[in-house]
């Protein structure tokens, strides 16, 4: 494993000019590359379409859950049905909740060896490069296919140190006390319509516990794959970082391209205790028929740090605002967000920072790109509560619009109940300037290469925060999105 890869990678080789980041791999460009799908007639279980008490009870029964969880699900369903559809953000009216499969189990269980994963599914993950990445630079992997995790691994030394990295269903069975202590404490079911939906039909997701003082050197990764048409994926992730512990968790997501829509509505809850540190990186690359409505929130305690690195490419509509609630003195939150809206796509992304204690600090950096009629919106909230004296927040959001058909909006909200604070907000919107294009082209770069380079440069301040392999991946995805955008 590369010894240079760690969490504080500000000076990682990704920034060197001889790193592979700048090498443009010769890939088959143009269409969404992950749009293939497998046969579904071999599935172990498929619920009928639609959402009602019977389906929710059936999911709970399939999973052999304790009664309290079944009741929690049913109560959450009632909350979901009661809550009106939000009218801000994107257009959610077209989602037909009765035309979706809420639970599908593709294989009979979770495997510890890729050889034991059914061939179709294994091949899918091989195409996505997961087993290869696992060998090279990950401490552990979970692969979720439809509703269930089909593969899981964790390095033995981490197991020995008491680290738990399992799927959330197994966690409920095997660590029920720990699970109940934290479950829904960060994001209750009634937080919003989609957290209620997730609480009713959740399945899979990652459960991680990092004991006091344990530093996990290499990232843990989860990969979420939707395969079926009209599928709903509702994973539930809960991460507990105990005092002084340190983790980097990475998730990736793809789905096949279908003409009808799929729904991905996850809930991610994170607790970072005193002096702990958690970085959660998402490289989401859904096909353009997926509604992606995700609630992510962290509770951050004394002198602890939470960082969200959030890359949103693809999907039909994404609404996602990773949040940090800074609950004790010295807590720090950071969100780095990249959104790329292509044709027919709306990315409504941003961040929330709630300062609830003195001397807390937050930073939001958002970069959004829109092209070919895409719409990228930044929506962010910085809230400083009464008594959070000496708190600091810095927000920078930059938008780059690649053509006249595309759109960008900014919705920065600030709520401040305390006078003794420092809040900064900068926003910029720019278009690719003709002068920049001409300058690069006059050096022999084609128009497409020149725009690609300007775009890559635009997101560079964010990409350099990623470990090298993910920086390569992010740049490659952006290049795929850029292909054919000009000339």
């Amino acid at each position: 494993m590369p010894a240079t890869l760690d969490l504080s990678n500000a000076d990682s080789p990704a920034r060197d000019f001889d790193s592979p980041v700048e090498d443009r791999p010769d890939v088959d460009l143009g269409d969404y590359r992950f749009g293939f799908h497998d046969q579904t007639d071999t599935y172990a279980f498929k619920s009928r379409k639609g959402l009602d008490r019977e389906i929710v009870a059936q999911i709970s029964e399939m999973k052999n859950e304790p009664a309290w969880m079944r009741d929690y699900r049913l109560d959450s369903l009632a909350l979901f049905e009661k809550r009106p559809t939000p009218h801000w953000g994107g257009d959610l009216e077209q989602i037909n909740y009765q035309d979706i499969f809420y639970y599908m189990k593709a294989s009979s269980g979770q495997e510890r060896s890729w050889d034991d994963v059914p061939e179709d599914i294994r091949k899918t993950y091989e195409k996505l490069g997961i087993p290869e990445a696992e060998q090279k630079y990950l401490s552990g992997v979970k692969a979720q296919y439809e509703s269930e995790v089909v593969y899981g691994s964790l390095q033995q030394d981490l197991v020995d140190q008491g680290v738990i990295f399992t799927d959330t269903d197994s966690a409920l069975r095997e660590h029920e006390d720990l699970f109940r202590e934290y479950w829904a404490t960060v994001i209750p079911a009634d937080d919003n319509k989609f957290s209620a939906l997730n609480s009713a039909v959740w399945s899979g997701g990652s459960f991680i516990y990092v004991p006091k003082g344990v530093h996990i050197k290499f990232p843990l990764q989860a990969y979420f794959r939707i395969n079926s048409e009209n599928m709903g994926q509702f994973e539930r992730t809960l991460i507990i970082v105990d005092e002084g512990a340190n983790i980097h968790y990475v998730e990736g997501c793809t789905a096949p391209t279908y003409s009808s829509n799929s729904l991905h509505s996850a809930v991610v809850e994170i607790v970072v205790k005193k002096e702990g540190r958690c970085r959660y990186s998402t490289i989401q690359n859904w096909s353009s028929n997926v509604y992606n409505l995700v609630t992510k929130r962290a509770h951050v305690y004394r002198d602890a740090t939470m960082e969200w690195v959030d890359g949103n490419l693809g999907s039909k509509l994404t609404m996602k605002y990773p949040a940090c609630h800074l609950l004790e003195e010295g807590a720090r939150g950071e969100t780095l967000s990249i959104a790329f809206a292509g044709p027919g796509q709306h990315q409504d992304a941003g961040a929330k920072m709630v300062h609830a204690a003195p001397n807390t600090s937050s930073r939001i950096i958002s970069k959004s790109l829109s092209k070919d009629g895409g719409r990228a919106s930044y929506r962010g909230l910085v809230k400083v509560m009464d008594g959070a004296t000496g708190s600091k927040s810095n927000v920078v959001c930059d938008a780059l619009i690649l053509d006249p058909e595309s759109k960008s909006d900014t919705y920065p909200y600030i709520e401040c109940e305390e006078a003794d604070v420092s809040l900064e907000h900068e926003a910029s919107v720019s278009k690719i300037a003709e002068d920049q294009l001409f300058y690069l082209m006059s050096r022999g770069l084609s128009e497409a290469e020149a725009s690609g380079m300007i775009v890559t440069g635009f997101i560079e301040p964010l990409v350099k925060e990623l470990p090298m392999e993910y920086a390569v991946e992010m740049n490659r995805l952006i290049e795929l999105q850029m292909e054919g955008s000009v000339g």
Partner: protein
Amino acid sequence: MSTLQITDLHVSVGDTPILRGVNLTLNSSEVHALMGPNGSGKSTLAYALAGHPGYTVTQGSVQLDGEEIIELEADQRARKGLYLAFQYPVTIPGVKVADFLRHAVSNVRNPDRKEGGDLISMREYRRELYERMDELSVDRAFARRYLNEGFSGGEKKRMEILQMAMLRPRFAFLDETDSGLDTDAVNVVSEGVAKLAEEQKMGVLIITHHDRLLHYNTPDHTHVMLGGKIVESGGAELAAELYTDGYAGVRDRHPEVAAEADARKAAEPELAGVA
């Protein structure tokens, strides 16, 4: 031996004609000085030769070894060996000098390279880049900096010459490269240009108000532009005369063109800015 032949070139910016019939022939290894008052069309000629889409050729031709190039995009011209050193180099945030230049060098040295094709070997490239940086007294740390971001005026100009040294063009147009440089920098840049002209047999068109670059790169030909035309050509002695005496003499010798230019300038004062 290459030839760049400019014949009766008319160029407009928007609806405004700037160049009104320029004739000029550059050969390999030749150094040409192009002088003239502000707004006479010198930069317009440079931009038009490099293929800026905002500069429309309305008449005339530009041939490189007999091949018409006015329909070609800027990148294709670069791949054929033309280079413009910008008067005001553009900042590209987040793009590292080394990364950008490696792509540029790969394309120019392998003109058939497709997007995504192999880049030149990193080892070879880095060795060459560092060598050129040392020659031009550019700190190696600039390789990792973002292109022109936060560079001083002089640093930008040196960066233009560094790029030229790496791209090894057949013909280079230096647009006021010497303005904004201190004496040391002028010396370094001048030597760099002279070396390339000699080693690569590069033809050079030096657009300048000063004689500083010309001091090291004695022009074989000097041209004076007025009102969008080349009104006089001569040898090195003409450049010296213009530098010492200004353009009053030229205007006196071409009163009609001078009057026309004044009239247009009065009608459209912003012309001085674009041209």
